[in-house]
């Protein structure tokens, strides 16, 4: 990516969560000493596993990341409820161990693999990506993971594989949101093969240097930064290589509102709201809406994938 190094926020500039939280606790404690009404201190975070990773500055944007608190407390993960605060509240008991991923369809290497087997050969890297929700809000997130392409290659997709489909766990016992047919469970998402092979598409296992909290799609999720957030499936249990375009969850639910491609595009409004601007989470009452960028700012990298396509039709 071509970004001026002088304005780049180095990953080392991000406040590590432990510093972040201790600072907040200090502030909260100071407030508590002064005013009883403000005595609500941050709840201590459960010690999450620290992950080993390197920082990928080339694929990181020069914008300030959102706080760990916002990233892990404001989530759309309908399997755990439709309010933004539901996933954090309802996903704490979610079991991500043991975890396995089934690979099927048009590939030479198929079968069911343990998560450990899936992750073993991949070195983790941190990438600071923009994250744009179809609801016109956005964040900047330091994800940890590895290129999806590297994973896909291991399964040796055949020439028939034109799409790759990602299926989220279907377990209403653990996922209370699945007890209602808000969407047609299990949640299915998918990419065209060339999209999946793009170096920006990422399999994610962590955020802010630690393992992904359950509410963010643990233990394994997708991140496709140039598409609306709903394209990035969470808690993935199945990867299928298909010849036909997958029937993705939101597209099945409301085809006129959510297309298969779902590329971030300020020129194509959602039928019920504008996509021209977005509100960056974390700015409080003074948060100004900012212009939404074509392909969420990744146009230089990915626009060529859609050359010749009518993006108002293939939205």
């Amino acid at each position, binding site marked *: 990516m071509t970004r001026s190094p002088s304005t780049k926020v180095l990953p080392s500039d991000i406040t590590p969560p432990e510093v972040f939280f201790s600072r907040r606790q200090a502030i909260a404690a100071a407030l508590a000493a002064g005013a009883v*009404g*403000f005595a*609500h201190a941050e709840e201590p975070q459960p010690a999450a596993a620290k992950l080993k990773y390197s920082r990928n500055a080339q694929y990181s944007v020069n914008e300030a990341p*959102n706080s760990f*608190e*916002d990233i892990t*407390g*404001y989530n759309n993960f*309908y399997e755990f409820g*439709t309010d*933004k*605060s539901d996933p954090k509240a309802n996903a704490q008991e979610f079991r991500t161990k043991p975890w396995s991923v089934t690979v099927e369809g048009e590939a030479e290497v198929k079968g069911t693999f343990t998560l450990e087997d899936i992750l073993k050969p991949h070195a983790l890297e941190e990438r600071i990506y923009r994250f744009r929700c179809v*609801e016109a*809000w956005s964040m900047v997130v330091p994800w940890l993971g590895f290129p999806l392409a590297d994973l896909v290659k291991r399964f040796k997709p055949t020439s028939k594989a034109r799409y790759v489909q990602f299926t989220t766990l279907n377990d209403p016992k653990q996922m209370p949101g699945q007890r*209602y047919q*808000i*969407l047609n469970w299990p949640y299915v998402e998918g990419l065209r093969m060339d999209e999946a092979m793009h170096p920006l598409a990422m399999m994610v296992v962590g955020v802010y240097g630690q393992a992904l909290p359950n509410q963010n799609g643990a233990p394994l999720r997708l991140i496709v930064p140039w598409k609306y957030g709903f394209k990035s499936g969470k808690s993935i249990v199945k990867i299928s290589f298909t010849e036909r375009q997958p029937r993705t969850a939101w597209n099945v*639910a*409301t085809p006129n509102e959510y297309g298969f491609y779902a590329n971030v595009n300020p020129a194509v409004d959602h039928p*019920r*709201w*504008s996509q021209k601007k977005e*509100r960056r*989470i*974390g700015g*409080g*009452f003074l*948060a*100004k*809406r900012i212009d939404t960028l074509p392909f969420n700012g990744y146009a230089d990298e990915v626009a060529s994938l859609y050359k010749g396509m009518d993006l108002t039709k293939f939205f």
Partner: protein
Amino acid sequence: MTVDQRYRWVYKPVVFVACLVPLVLLVSRGFGLFGQSLGPDPIKFTLHWIGKTALNILMLTLLVTPVRHLAGWPHVVRIRRMLGLFAFSYALLHFTIYIVLDQELDFTGLLKDIAKRPYITVGFAALVILIPLAITSTNKMMRRLGRRWQTLHRWVYAAAILGVVHYYWQVKRDVREPLIYAGILAILLGYRLVRRLRKAKPITSTSGSATAPERT
């Protein structure tokens, strides 16, 4: 205490304070009291909170008449104006938050939204309907308008329907809560319809069958 005194010194002040509770709770969240907050997107949270409060109080306004009939409390109608004015005030506040905080006073964008986005169109229409009702809510206006006052104020039914549609249409997918509002509103309006039909056509052994389907 006489009925007048009870309303003046007890019931009305209690309702007044109760109607302010949602606003007080919101402000206390804003200051982080009681371990609560407005969350990562305080503008959206505030917008929705105030909007829902407007709808809730509008529903309560429409509940006054059935309670008056069914509970046999003829005087309860005296709190209706206050409820209606609170509903209007919250709706106006909701709209103000939308244009100032959400749309950042982008008036061209706002006009486009009103014209292009059906959920905004109906929400705006509901607010516009409530304006003349609020203006004509004084005793003086009631006297001046006479019988026409009631005809005018029946428009509150349209405002309530549009308000619920506004809520239903802005929800992304999970419509359970808007449907609950729709159900409650259907009961409140259905009650009036049934009562009207029964009054218009007193049930006798022959005409009873004609009105029966309406009452089910």
